[in-house]
């Protein structure tokens, strides 16, 4: 059954552009109970890596946990690519609520709204109120910083955060860090963390045991995926140098509205699908804007990410689920 589900996900990834082009050229993650393998494609040669040994067997009750990442809800968007983004967000929440295990919390990796309008944030809050997980952590996307430099975002979702909304917390032995790379963007640049945040990050990680699993989450990818479309963060290298010494690092991002993954040593990078609309694969369209797909396929290219942490393993098992799956 795990393979069948993965096949379904693979199929969706392959059919994404409806042009017969197989997406095996991109990195795929195949984390699932039983198989527990992470595949990477490097110059066309597949390399597998066993991951989270013992996943599936809940050894210590309470030590293992799961959380869900959602991203890019863009409440307020109403163009042909998806005329009702509130409905698809609701579908995502219903999917979370239907999971056999209630996630400990939800992380929203930004672009909550389309235009930073109060009504858009209000609508988002209404939908999220019905989620089974009551604790939700947010980082802003560039669409949440409009008109007021993110003031409203901070007021609504920035409790306990610093600067433009960064923060960290610990949960059952895992250290989570929410970063903001959409503030004070410079002309011609990509995402940016900024000096103040980088200093805070270095200090935040100081003295922590290298065996502490680390999860970094931010809106724009913290690795360079496609500079022409701004899909990267100019100063992320410095941030990543601070986590280099840790045994397990997972980076969760959004912004690109499609799944992309990369493994570099002990750092696993993963971007999530949007709950609103898909975007084209790098360089396959004139721009990164909303991509229209046949209506009946929309639910397959939007999704949520379920992340499971098993205390006996050294990594997090990441499973992406399309809304229509």
């Amino acid at each position, binding site marked *: 059954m795990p393979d069948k589900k993965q096949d379904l996900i693979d199929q969706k990834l392959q059919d994404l552009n409806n042009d017969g082009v197989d997406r095996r050229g991109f990195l795929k993650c195949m984390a699932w109970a039983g198989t527990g393998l992470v595949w990477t494609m490097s110059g066309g040669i597949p390399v597998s890596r066993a991951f989270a040994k013992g996943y599936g067997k809940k050894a210590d009750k309470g030590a293992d946990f799961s959380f869900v990442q959602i991203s890019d809800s863009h409440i307020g968007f109403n163009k042909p690519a998806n005329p009702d983004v509130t409905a698809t967000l609701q579908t995502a929440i219903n999917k979370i609520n239907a999971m056999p295990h209630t996630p400990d919390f939800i992380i929203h990796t930004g672009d909550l709204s*389309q*235009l930073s309008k109060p009504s858009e944030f209000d609508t988002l809050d209404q939908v999220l109120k019905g989620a089974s997980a009551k604790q939700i952590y947010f980082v802003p996307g560039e669409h949440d910083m*409009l008109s007021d430099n993110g003031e409203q975002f901070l007021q609504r979702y920035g409790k306990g955060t610093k600067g433009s909304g960064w923060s960290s917390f610990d949960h059952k032995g895992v250290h989570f860090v929410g970063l903001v790379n959409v503030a004070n963007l410079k*002309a011609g640049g990509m995402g940016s963390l900024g000096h103040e945040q980088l200093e805070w990050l270095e200090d935040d990680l100081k003295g922590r045991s290298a065996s502490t699993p680390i999860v970094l989450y931010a809106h724009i990818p913290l690795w360079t995926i496609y500079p022409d479309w701004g899909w990267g963060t100019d100063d992320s290298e410095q941030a990543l140098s601070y986590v280099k010494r840790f045994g397990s690092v997972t980076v969760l991002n959004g912004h690109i509205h499609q799944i992309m993954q990369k493994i570099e040593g002990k750092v696993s990078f993963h971007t999530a699908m949007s709950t609103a609309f898909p975007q084209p694969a790098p360089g396959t369209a004139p721009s990164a*804007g*909303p991509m229209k797909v046949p209506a009946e396929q929309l639910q397959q290219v939007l999704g949520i990410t379920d992340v499971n942490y098993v205390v006996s393993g050294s990594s997090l098992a990441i499973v992406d689920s399309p809304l229509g799956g």
Partner: protein
Amino acid sequence: MKSITKGINKMTKQSIWVASLATPAMIAVLLLLLGSPSVRANDHSAANATVKIDNFVFGPQTLTVPVGTTVTWTNSDDIPHTSVSTDGVFKSKVLDTDEKFSYTFTKAGTYPYYCTIHPKMTGKVVVQ
């Protein structure tokens, strides 16, 4: 003008009558056309110029205009954009699809700008 007069002399009585009415009208129209301002689309002497935003691009990326021109940015993309000067000279609000922003350039110079939401989008207005 000479050829018109010659042509008129060769016509019949009826034609002469019609032609004699038409000639002054034709001359009047000619004078009007010669005296009117140019209506060519890409005329750089116009007081207005436009930048079209589409597919994450400012078009044209470099716009050259004379001092006193009002430049209007129109967002034809399905995603919001902004037009913000890198030197603090002008700053649009967020432009959703079909929204516009105008700025009148009263001083000569080069004005680089970008979209604060998608900073890879850059443009330049050169005012001469």
